C-alpha cells in the first residue's frame, strides 16, 4: 500500500509503510529458527522408517550409539557412505577398536538400526548377525511414532 504525499513544489513521492511486512517477516524468522533441528543429522531421505504407536522418543542418549541405516536395496548407510552388507564387518571392526580404546566393550555399545519399511527382513537379520559376530549385543530398532 502506498501513501502519496505531495509537497508544495508539486512532485509526488510514494512511501510504503514497512512496519506490517517487517513484523510478519520477523515472525516467520522466529518460527523457522525455533523449529530448525540440526541434531536430526542421521535422518536420510532414502530411509522411510516403519511406524509404530509404541515408538516413544528415548529419555536420554543411549550409551555409545552406532547408527546403521539399512536401505531397501540391501545396502547400509554408515556415516556418509553407502556400503554393501558384506563389507560391514570391516567397519564394525574399526568401531570395536575405537570402543576398546575408550576402555569399554562392544557389548555396552548400542547399535541403532534404522531400516526402511520395505527392507527384506533377511537383510536386517544379516546386519544383526554381523554385529553379533563382532560382539555387539544391544540393538535398538528405530521406528517413527504413529499417532493413533
Amino acid at each position, binding site marked *: 500500500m502506498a501513501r502519496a504525499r505531495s509537497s508544495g513544489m508539486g512532485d509526488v513521492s510514494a512511501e510504503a509503510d514497512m512496519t506490517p511486512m517487517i513484523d510478519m517477516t520477523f515472525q516467520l524468522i522466529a518460527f523457522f529458527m525455533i523449529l530448525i533441528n540440526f541434531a536430526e543429522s542421521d535422518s536420510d531421505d532414502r530411509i522411510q522408517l516403519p511406524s509404530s504407536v509404541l515408538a516413544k522418543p528415548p529419555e536420554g542418549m543411549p550409551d555409545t550409539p552406532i547408527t546403521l541405516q539399512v536401505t531397501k536395496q540391501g545396502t547400509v548407510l554408515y556415516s556418509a557412505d553407502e556400503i554393501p552388507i558384506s563389507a560391514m564387518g570391516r567397519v564394525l571392526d574399526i568401531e570395536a577398536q575405537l570402543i576398546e580404546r575408550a576402555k569399554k566393550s562392544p557389548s555396552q555399545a548400542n547399535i*541403532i538400526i534404522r531400516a526402511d519399511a520395505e527392507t527384506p527382513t533377511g537383510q536386517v537379520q544379516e546386519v544383526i*548377525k554381523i554385529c553379533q559376530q563382532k560382539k555387539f549385543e544391544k*540393538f535398538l530398532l528405530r521406528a517413527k*511414532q504413529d499417532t493413533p
Partner: protein
Amino acid sequence: MKARRGGGLPGKVEQNMTPMIDVVFQLLAFFVMTFKLATVEGDFNIKMPISAPSAGVSENPFPPIKLVMKAGAGGQLASMNMGDRPLGTNFATLHNEILSLVGNSTGPGSMASQMEVELDCDPALHYTNVIKAITAVSGHMNAQGQVIRLIEKVKFASPRS
C-alpha cells in the same frame, strides 16, 4: 541516518530500511530452505548376544514363544503362526493372543516381564511387518494415552538361508 525536515512539522527521522530488509530476507530464505519437519522417533530395545544356550535356559523359566511369519508375493505378510496356532495376517489377533497369555500380569517381576518372543521371519518379508509384530507383542496404548507394556523381550531366530 538521514534527517529530513518538513515544512512546518517538527524534525522527523527516517531510517534507510533496505539493508535490514535484505538481511532479513536472506535469513528467511535460509530457514525456509533448510526447514525439515522433524518426525518423532522411538526405539525397541533388543538384547541379543550371540547364541549362548546354557546361559539362556538358567535365566528364563519360560520357553520363548515362537512367532513364525511367512512372506507372500512382494514381501507382504502371507500368514502368522504362534506356536501351532494360525493367526492369519491380523496383528490385532496376535495382540489379543498375547493378552490372553499374559492376562493382567504386567509390570516388573510379572510373567510378561519374564516371557520372551522369538521371531522367525521369511527373509523376503518387509521389515515393517516385523515392527508391527513387535508392537503387537510389546504392548498397547490405553485410552488415556499411557503405554501398557506386555512382553518386551524379543529376539530373532537364526536367519533362514
